[in-house]
């Protein structure tokens, strides 16, 4: 038979009847020979050096570790993931295999999707390893609570989106410089996007590196007393999913049939629409009273309800009770407050316990956020002293137990005394003197900036635009009317020294009789013993 006279062959092709098996096998091959696999050690080393140790330096509170890991992991992984994905996306063209690949039966988009999936799987494995270590250690160390999963979902969605962006760039613009340019460019876009965030109502909060109010330092109180508000996370995941879909739609466009092109255009348009909607939603976010970003359209009212917990309490005449997440701090806090609590225990109007409560947050102009205590420090019947630990107020959780105890002694001890005698800016000199005397006896400074009433020295303010404090206060009437602010030559100071020199029994006896009148401002300096 000659070549010119042969008939058309009719044998059935060896066509796959179970394409899932072939795809799985193809995926295994791609997993085995994937640039992201080789990039994993780099990604893990970057994470170890830049993030792991810093995250683990934080107190073992789930919210702190989870949100810190979220922000850091996104920033750490963007370069290796986009770079590796761009390498894989440009592989066919760089290896000059386009013709050979094009002549195979599997559709181009399906083939590329497998390559992208393998790249993404390795990237997620890398992130999963970081997450597993941080969460495992935190689970071992944390005294209360459980892992937060929304930050994990956002980071995982970010990894998938970074992979899609890099892969699309590599596929559409193949070249030797594509991978480094895309990797570095993505990192700059990520970092610069956060510079444009002003206030909580910013479209740029959609940036996946944002885990809460931007420019607010991590606060251990957030998501401890109230559930983690996942509104922003939902918007971010929606944005990242849209971005991923749009990128994959763009990848499927070139060198495809008309039908595939039409489908890819629809998919890409849907992705862009989803991403755009998510950005708009993020722009409606506002800082809620519990320190998280709430988006009205996505908000679940259930997250406004406080988390029920059984506080851990110290023993003593006036127990100190903390959220169980802070149980590691209880011995130090209770020890440092015990002198003042012993001093006032049993007096009329004295608190029956000191209980830790949640801070309240308020958005100021720009990125200024103020934190404080809603209502007075002394509330209820019988009265309880509502405690905000210093790291809840300042947003700085990075205190050792020793540092925390020192701040509690300097800030909260005098505030307890002040609340007992109703000392404050408008208090009488006798109130100033007694408060100062009790503080001296307890070995505490008399001044305090504790935010609860009746000592409204001012609220702590965070943010880069206004780093100072709120309403300023100075002079003898400031804060607790502290001895620290009393002129040593003043009659108030002399009265305070005189009162402090009394035996404890004499002090308590006088206070038991006159405390109500003292609080009402009816005692003069001359009437003090």
């Amino acid at each position, binding site marked *: *038979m*000659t*070549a*010119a*006279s*042969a*008939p*058309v*062959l009719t*044998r059935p*092709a*060896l*066509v*796959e*009847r*179970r*394409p899932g*098996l*072939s795809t799985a*096998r*193809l995926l295994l*091959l791609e997993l*085995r*020979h994937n640039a992201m696999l080789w990039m994993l050690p780099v990604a893990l080393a970057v994470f170890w050096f830049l993030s792991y140790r810093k995250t683990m330096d934080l107190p073992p509170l789930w919210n702190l570790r989870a949100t810190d890991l979220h922000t850091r992991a996104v920033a750490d992984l963007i370069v290796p993931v986009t770079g590796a994905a761009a390498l894989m996306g440009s*592989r*066919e063209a760089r*290896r*000059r*295999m*386009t*013709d*050979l*690949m*094009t*002549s*195979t*039966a*599997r*559709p181009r988009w399906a*083939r590329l999707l497998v390559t992208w999936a393998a790249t993404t799987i390795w990237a997620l494995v890398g992130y999963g390893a970081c997450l597993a270590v941080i969460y495992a250690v935190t689970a071992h160390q944390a005294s209360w609570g459980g892992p937060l999963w929304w930050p994990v979902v956002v980071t995982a969605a970010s990894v998938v989106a970074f992979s899609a962006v890099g892969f699309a760039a590599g596929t559409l613009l193949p070249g030797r410089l594509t991978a480094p340019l895309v990797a570095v460019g993505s990192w700059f876009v990520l970092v610069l996007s956060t510079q444009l965030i002003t206030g909580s109502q910013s479209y740029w909060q959609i940036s996946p590196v944002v885990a809460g109010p931007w420019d607010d330092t991590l606060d251990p109180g957030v998501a401890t007393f109230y559930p983690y508000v996942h509104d922003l996370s939902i918007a971010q995941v929606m944005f990242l999913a849209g971005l991923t879909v749009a990128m994959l739609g763009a990848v499927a466009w070139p060198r495809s*049939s*008309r*039908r*595939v092109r039409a489908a890819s255009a629809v998919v890409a348009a849907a992705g862009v629409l989803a991403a755009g909607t998510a950005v708009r939603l993020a722009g409606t976010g506002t800082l809620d009273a519990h320190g998280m970003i709430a988006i009205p359209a996505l908000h679940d009212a259930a997250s406004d309800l406080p988390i029920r917990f059984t506080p851990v309490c110290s023993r003593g005449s006036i127990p100190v009770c903390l959220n169980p997440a802070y149980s590691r701090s209880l011995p130090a806090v209770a020890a440092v407050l015990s002198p003042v609590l012993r001093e006032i225990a049993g007096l009329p109007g004295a608190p029956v316990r000191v209980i830790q409560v949640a801070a309240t947050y308020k958005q100021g102009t720009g990125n200024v956020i103020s934190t404080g205590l809603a209502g007075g420090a002394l509330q209820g019947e019988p009265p309880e002293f509502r405690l905000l630990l210093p790291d809840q107020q300042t947003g700085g959780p990075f205190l050792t137990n020793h540092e925390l105890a020192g701040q509690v002694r300097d800030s909260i001890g005098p505030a307890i005394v002040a609340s007992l005698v109703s000392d404050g800016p408008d208090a009488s000199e006798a109130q100033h003197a007694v408060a100062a005397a009790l503080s001296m006896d307890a070995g505490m400074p008399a001044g305090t900036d504790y935010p609860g009433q009746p000592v409204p020295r001012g609220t702590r303010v965070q943010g880069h635009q206004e780093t100072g404090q709120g309403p300023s206060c100075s002079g003898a009437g400031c804060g607790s009317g502290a001895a620290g602010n009393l002129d040593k030559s003043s009659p108030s100071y002399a009265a305070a020294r005189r009162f402090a020199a009394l035996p404890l029994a004499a002090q308590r006896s006088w206070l038991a009789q006159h405390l109500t009148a003292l609080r009402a401002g009816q005692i003069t300096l001359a009437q003090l013993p």
Partner: protein
Amino acid sequence: MNVQVSGLTRRFGRAIAVAGVDLEIGVGVFGLLGPNGAGKTSLLRMMATAVPPTSGTLRLLGRDPGEAGQRREIRCRLGYLPQNPGYYLGFTVTEFVEYFALLKEVPAARVPGAVAAAVERVGLRDRARARLRTLSGGMLRRAAIAQAIVNEPELLLLDEPTAGLDPEQRVAFRALLRELGQRATVVVSTHLVEDVGAACARLALMDRGWIVFHGTPHELSARGAGHDSGDAPLERGYSAVLSAVRS
């Protein structure tokens, strides 16, 4: 006919690579001869459905490659060895061939057997587990041939398949071509006339995008009678036809 080409033209910008080619090819080994730049590779790329024609009609295995569903059917039955195939150098020989078997949608259950057979046929069984980056140029070429035949193609397109093969391998390859040509249409593009003479039942000679000769190797040799350029009859025929066309 497994390949039916009519008025096929391919332009790249202003350059015309293939200029209105008419050709019909059935089962057997078909040689595509011609000097550099004659349009052989462009014609083969169109037959491989890697690039669409600018104009003209092309039917492969009785199907229209311009229609997506039929193009996919063609590709399932197609084997293609480009002139400069790329390689994923981190793959082993087996993985490389398996990769293409899967892309050609060979049933997963049949892949291991098909891969082993293809690797065996190109004489790389001993190096089946070697990574491609460790192979010589000739071995790489044989790995590329293995991927082309792994799906038992009904239409096999080979562009300069013997480039880089040593004489012994080249002889073995010609035997393989003859064997494959028993059941399939094999189109071999080459500028080595001895390959055509040894393996092809029919051939076409291209020059500047046109087919200037279409016949058997014997008929081409006969054209060289009295022509003194070339060492072998086929070479003399090749030179004679090109000289006649160009004059």
